[in-house]
């Protein structure tokens, strides 16, 4: 049990850092100081791919830049379903510092951090760290900022950060100290309520991931161990599809009952394109 709180869960830290803000260094130090496992984004993509037996690129495409040749919305949603299920699983275990994009779970014992700073300062740091030409570093920082701004607005669930670390005037170890101090505060300790909420999210995440190969646009809601799968569709799905969704969701460990809710997509039906 952590710091006299009543729940058996454990606090986690998620750090999203802008390019050149020394995010890796800070996350590593936070993990070391708190005795938490460090979980970089790349590792999480890999473990999500392994868990759901897909190519890592299927998971990573959830984070790809929008372009004509880029992945479709459905492909992104599929990748995100695998990624989010893996992340929620890690957060449920607790004692982890995740470093990368994604808003996480939004529970009270997850400390959400954004590490940022002035673009010029970050470009200088990025150039120094990777031996880059200053102009190339500035261009990389600008492109990265623009990409993640787009990604956060369009694809990420809008969960506000608990704290924004400005690295312009602090060294990475000082930034890490700020985060460590915050993570030890009582308000970020797990409660029975936040632990149960995270368990529900984790189960919903696993159901969504299990259904992602069938239809990544399916929405999943959980009430205890009863799962409601919401399908927005222009036409009534065949019995075979309905049964497949039902069977797949029921096969997820922890699920007791599955309800399917069909919602008519009037616009899709009218234009005849479907989804």
């Amino acid at each position, binding site marked *: *049990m952590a710091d*006299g*709180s*009543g*729940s*058996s869960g454990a606090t986690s830290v998620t750090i999203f850092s802008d390019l050149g803000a020394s995010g890796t260094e800070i996350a590593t130090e936070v993990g070391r100081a708190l005795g938490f496992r460090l979980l970089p984004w790349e590792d999480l993509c890999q473990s999500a791919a392994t868990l759901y037996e897909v190519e890592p690129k299927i998971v990573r495409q959830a984070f790809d830049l929008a372009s004509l040749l880029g992945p479709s919305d459905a492909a992104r949603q599929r990748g995100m379903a695998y990624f989010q299920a893996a992340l929620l699983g890690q957060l449920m275990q607790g004692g982890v510092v995740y470093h990368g994009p994604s808003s996480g779970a*939004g*529970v*009270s014992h997850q400390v959400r951090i954004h590490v940022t700073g002035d673009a010029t300062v970050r470009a200088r740091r990025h150039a120094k760290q990777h031996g880059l030409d200053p102009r190339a570093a500035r261009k990389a920082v600008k492109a990265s900022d623009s990409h993640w701004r787009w990604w956060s607005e369009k694809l990420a669930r809008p969960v506000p950060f608990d704290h924004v670390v400005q690295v312009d005037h602090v060294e990475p170890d000082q930034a890490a100290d700020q985060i460590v101090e915050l993570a030890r*505060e*009582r*308000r*970020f*300790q797990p*409660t*029975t*309520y*936040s632990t*149960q*909420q995270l368990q529900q999210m984790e189960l919903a995440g696993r159901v969504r991931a299990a259904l992602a190969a069938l239809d990544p646009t399916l929405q999943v809601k959980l009430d205890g161990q009863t799962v409601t799968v919401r399908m927005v569709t222009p036409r009534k799905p065949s019995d075979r599809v309905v049964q497949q969704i039902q069977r797949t969701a029921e096969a997820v460990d922890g699920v007791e009952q599955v309800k399917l809710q069909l919602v008519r997509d009037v616009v899709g039906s009218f234009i005849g394109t479907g989804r």
Partner: protein
Amino acid sequence: MLENLDVLVLDDEPIVGKRLKAVLGKIGCQVETFTDPLRAFDRIAEKQFHIVVTDIVMGEIDGIQVLERVIEKWPQTKVIMITGYAMMAMARRAMERGAFDFIAKPFKPEELRAVVTRAAAELEPRVVKVT
């Protein structure tokens, strides 16, 4: 069983106090129930309870005020917050003010018993006999 464990339960719905008294009585707790926060304050002023279980949304006086009053008078007392209007921000606020735990209603009897047992385990070992 938790012997010699004094618990105060405060909830403006009488049925909740009645049920929780039965739930906690089964594990050996001595439970006093209140529906009026002011009367609970009077009792808290004269007696140290090991554990206080309080509702949060109760009209003029809310559970956070109860929590603060208890912690101020008896810092060793473990305060467990219960509410039917649970939100993450509320949970954080309660924990920040010193709550031991925060539970959303409705909850199963065994969930409350588990939290009370954990709270008792953190009290002075001589105070409560946990068997």
